[in-house]
């Protein structure tokens, strides 16, 4: 009577039962693990940032006032919410922030177009390269992406600075007789962004060129189209999905870029990522930094959604292609 229904205690039986449990709940477990991870470490932090952006800065550890407080009022607990819109008011009234925001959008947009201008011929050249070269050349585009971002930005300081290598070279050749001021200007930031983000632009465009049907271009040329015109009328539209993806991959992170403007840019043109950094690390104003983050994210919601749609469509296309094969 005593041993009725008692499970066997041997480790094998336990393992088997555990295995059975995993088997039964495997699917849920596979989905739940990454789901919870991203929810906890990606989504919840945004909610906290949003909450904090309505809070007040105080001299304390951590340096902000609580937003929700439970107040005992006679015999009932009342949830007291102090919504402070002051941070957003400050962002609106102090022109520093609006300027930084506008600067970021402008610099990111110009830099994205410049990156496109450099990447388009490169991607085209890659797609047209002979087969035995192509893999090595694509590898050469990817390789800088693996080396440190910080180091690649740092490399430009020595080149662009007043007594740097570029000025030394230009002076030696005799193109200029006065050293150019490039470091600590917007130009240096453009160079830094184009340089750092170039692989992100080249690879998606190359991928869409690669799938292209040559006969279309040949048909256009046979029908009397000049090659340059054929490129713009036939090739460029085919590369459009790659161009859109590349532009989003460059533009979105570039708007919030910190390292490049901080090391290469001037002190007059702050970008929004820098103001967030300064508010957080130098002024220790966490609520204001959170408000900057929320506004930055709001401005990027549309491009981020576009990017996600593109990603989903791309993986859907991959699936139908695999299905056909």
């Amino acid at each position, binding site marked *: 009577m005593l041993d009725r229904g008692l499970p066997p205690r041997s480790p094998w039986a336990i393992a088997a039962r555990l295995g059975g449990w995993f088997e039964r709940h*495997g699917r849920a477990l596979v989905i739940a693990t990454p789901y919870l991870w991203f929810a906890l470490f990606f989504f919840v932090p945004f909610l906290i940032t949003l909450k904090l952006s309505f809070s007040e800065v105080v001299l304390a550890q951590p340096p902000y006032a609580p937003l929700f407080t439970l107040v005992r009022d006679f015999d009932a607990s009342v949830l007291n919410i102090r919504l402070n819109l002051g941070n957003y008011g400050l962002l609106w009234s102090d022109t520093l922030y609006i300027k930084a925001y506008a600067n970021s959008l402008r610099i990111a947009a110009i830099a994205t177009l410049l990156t496109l201008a450099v990447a388009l011929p*490169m991607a085209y050249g890659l797609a*047209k390269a002979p087969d035995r070269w192509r893999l090595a*050349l694509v590898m050469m585009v990817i390789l*800088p992406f693996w080396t*440190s971002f910080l180091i690649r930005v*740092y490399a430009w300081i020595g080149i662009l600075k007043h007594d740097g290598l570029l000025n030394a070279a230009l002076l030696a050749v005799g193109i200029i007789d006065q050293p150019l001021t490039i470091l600590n200007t917007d130009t240096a930031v453009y160079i830094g962004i184009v340089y750092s983000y*170039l692989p992100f632009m080249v690879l998606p465009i190359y991928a869409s060129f690669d799938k292209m049907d040559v006969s279309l271009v040949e048909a256009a040329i046979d029908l009397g189209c000049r090659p340059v015109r054929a490129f713009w009328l036939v090739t460029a539209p085919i590369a459009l999905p790659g161009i859109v993806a590349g532009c989003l991959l460059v533009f979105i992170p570039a708007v919030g870029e910190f390292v490049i403007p901080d090391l290469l840019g001037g002190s007059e043109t702050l970008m929004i990522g820098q103001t967030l950094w300064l508010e957080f690390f130098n002024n220790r104003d966490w609520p204001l930094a959170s408000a900057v983050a929320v506004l930055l994210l709001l401005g990027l919601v549309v491009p981020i959604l576009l990017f996600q749609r593109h990603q989903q469509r791309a993986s859907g296309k991959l699936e139908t292609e695999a299905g056909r094969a």
Partner: protein
Amino acid sequence: MRPGFTPVTVTALTLGFAFLYLPILILIVFSFNASRLVTVWGGFSLKWYVELLANRQLLDAAWMTLRIALTSATVALVVGTLAGVSLTRFATFRGRTPFSAMIYAPLVMPEVITGLSLLLLFVSIDWDRGFWTVTVAHATFSAAYVAVVVQSRLLTFDAVLEEAAMDLGATPAKTFFVITLPIIAPALASGWLLAFTLSLDDLVVASFTTGPGATTLPMRIYSQVRLGVTPEINAISTVLIALVTVGVIVASLMQKRQIAARRRAAT
């Protein structure tokens, strides 16, 4: 597209690659400069490398960075692979759209936002900042990259193999470990390597989420760079570039050999 170099494409590629590689080459060359001035060549010397070995702070930071990168890449591999499998093999489940949104968003999210929001999470749950907070932060954005790499591999191989294994009575878990895992292994390797270098590289997210005693190499380099260009930074940069280049080349050669071996086995 008909393959072949034309003068136009050769010029485009030459200029493009010169732009990509010249700055790095210059940086490497000047790490062997005997002169402290970065623009004047003072003869060949290894003295900056010798100084590196004596720089205790830098070596400590390098060790810390390596540990964080190894741990976070491994965590990212597990989480990212599960995410990639969920997205491709379970076509429909409740909450799939927000799930895929959470996976694609970290790929483009500005680092300052990721860093700040994760820090606020760690503070509000009272998690002491240090090694583990940086590791978790890195694992999170790296997992998104791993998920995309694994997903694209899973989408391009024939699911018939998995179906056959299950028809023959293998459980889903066994099918995954015996059939799926070996096929996607190269994608897992490159996903891990990607996660590893992303972590090795990161300055912004680490600066937000770190605590006392967990200073990473990029943070050390950054604070030195702000003081000016020194050959010592060139030297440490050269070491890092050499390590990563060797790693990537070895990984791609291994992948090539594996593909060649599979082709031989198939014929």
